[in-house]
C-alpha cells in the first residue's frame, strides 16, 4: 500500500467512523423508543442508497481526464476539508460547543416519544427518521469515498475503509447499547480536516499544472505543516478568548 493509499484509507475510515457515531445515536434513540424493526429497515435502506450512489458516481468520475479530475477532487476536498477543520478548530479552542452525543440522544428520545403512537407494521416515524439520519450523515462520507477513491482509482479500498468503520461502530453500538460518548469526535474531525485539506492542496495544485518540490514526497511536508498551522490557530484563539474573558472579569468589579 502506497503512502497516498494509506492516507486515503485513514481519512475515509476516520470520517466514516465520526459520521457513523452520530448516525448511531439517532438510530438507537428511535429504535429504543419506537420500533427496532422499522428503524433498522430505514437505516438499511439509507445504507443501500448510499452504496448505489457510490457505485454509480465513482466509476463515472474516473472517466474524467486526470487533470480535470484532480482539479474537481482537489477543489471539493479543500472546501470540505477547510469546513471540517474550521469547525474542529473552533470547538478545540472553546468557541463552539463540542458535539455531545448524550445530549443529542436525549433530544432524539424526546422527539420520538412526542411523535404519537407507534404504527403497527412499519412505523413511518421510525423509518423516516432513521433513513434521513443515516442518509444525511453518510452523504458527506460518500463524497469523500468517491473523490479520494476516484483520484487514485481505488474506490474499492475507500469503500472497504468506510465499510470497516461502519461495521466497527455498529458492533460497538450493539455491545454498548448506548450513544458512544467516549469517542474523541473532535480530534477525529480535526484529523480528517487536516488530511482532506492536505490532499486537496496537493491534487488541486497538480491538476492545474503546478509541480510540487519532491513530487509525491511533498505530502510528507504538507500534512504536518497543515496540522501545525491548525494547532497554532487553536493556541492563538485559546489565548485570545482567555485574555478576553480575563479582561471581562477584571472589568466587572469596577463596573459594579
Amino acid at each position: 500500500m502506497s503512502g497516498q493509499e494509506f492516507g486515503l484509507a485513514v481519512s475515509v475510515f476516520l470520517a466514516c467512523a465520526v459520521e457513523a457515531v452520530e448516525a448511531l445515536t439517532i438510530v438507537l434513540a428511535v429504535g429504543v423508543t419506537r420500533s427496532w424493526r422499522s428503524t433498522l429497515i430505514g437505516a438499511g435502506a439509507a445504507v443501500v442508497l448510499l452504496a448505489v450512489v457510490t457505485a454509480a458516481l465513482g466509476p463515472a468520475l474516473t472517466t474524467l481526464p486526470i487533470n480535470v479530475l484532480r482539479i474537481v477532487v482537489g477543489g471539493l476536498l479543500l472546501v470540505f476539508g477547510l469546513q471540517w477543520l474550521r469547525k474542529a478548530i473552533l470547538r478545540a479552542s472553546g468557541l463552539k460547543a463540542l458535539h455531545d452525543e448524550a445530549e443529542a440522544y436525549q433530544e432524539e428520545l424526546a422527539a420520538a416519544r412526542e411523535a404519537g403512537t407507534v404504527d403497527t407494521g412499519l412505523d413511518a416515524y421510525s423509518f423516516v427518521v432513521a433513513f434521513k439520519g443515516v442518509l444525511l450523515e453518510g452523504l458527506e462520507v460518500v463524497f469523500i469515498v468517491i473523490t479520494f477513491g476516484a483520484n487514485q482509482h481505488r474506490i474499492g479500498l475507500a469503500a472497504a475503509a468506510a465499510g470497516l468503520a461502519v461495521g466497527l461502530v455498529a458492533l460497538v453500538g450493539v455491545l454498548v447499547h448506548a450513544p458512544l460518548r467516549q469517542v474523541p469526535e473532535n480530534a477525529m474531525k480535526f484529523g480528517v480536516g487536516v488530511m482532506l485539506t492536505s490532499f486537496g492542496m496537493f491534487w488541486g495544485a497538480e491538476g492545474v499544472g503546478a509541480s510540487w518540490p519532491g513530487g509525491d514526497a511533498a505530502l510528507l511536508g504538507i500534512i504536518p505543516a497543515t496540522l501545525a498551522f491548525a494547532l497554532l490557530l487553536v493556541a492563538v484563539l485559546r489565548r485570545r478568548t482567555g485574555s478576553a474573558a480575563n479582561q471581562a472579569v477584571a472589568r466587572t468589579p469596577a463596573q459594579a
Partner: protein
Amino acid sequence: MKRLESVFRFVWEFVIGDDWRIAAGVVIALGASAVVASTSLAAWWILPLAVAGLLAFSVWAATDSG
C-alpha cells in the same frame, strides 16, 4: 418552487457550509494557481498560502461574530 428552493438550500449547506468565503477563496486560489502554472514561474506555493489565509480569516471572523 418551494421544493426547488429547499434542494438548493440543502446543496448550498452541504457544499458551501458555514462560510461561503472559503469556497470562493478556494476557487480563486485554484484559478490563480492555473494562471501562474501556465507561465515559467512555480505555482505550488499559492494553495498552501491561500489555505493558511482562508482558515485564519474564517476562524477569526467567527470569533468576532460570536
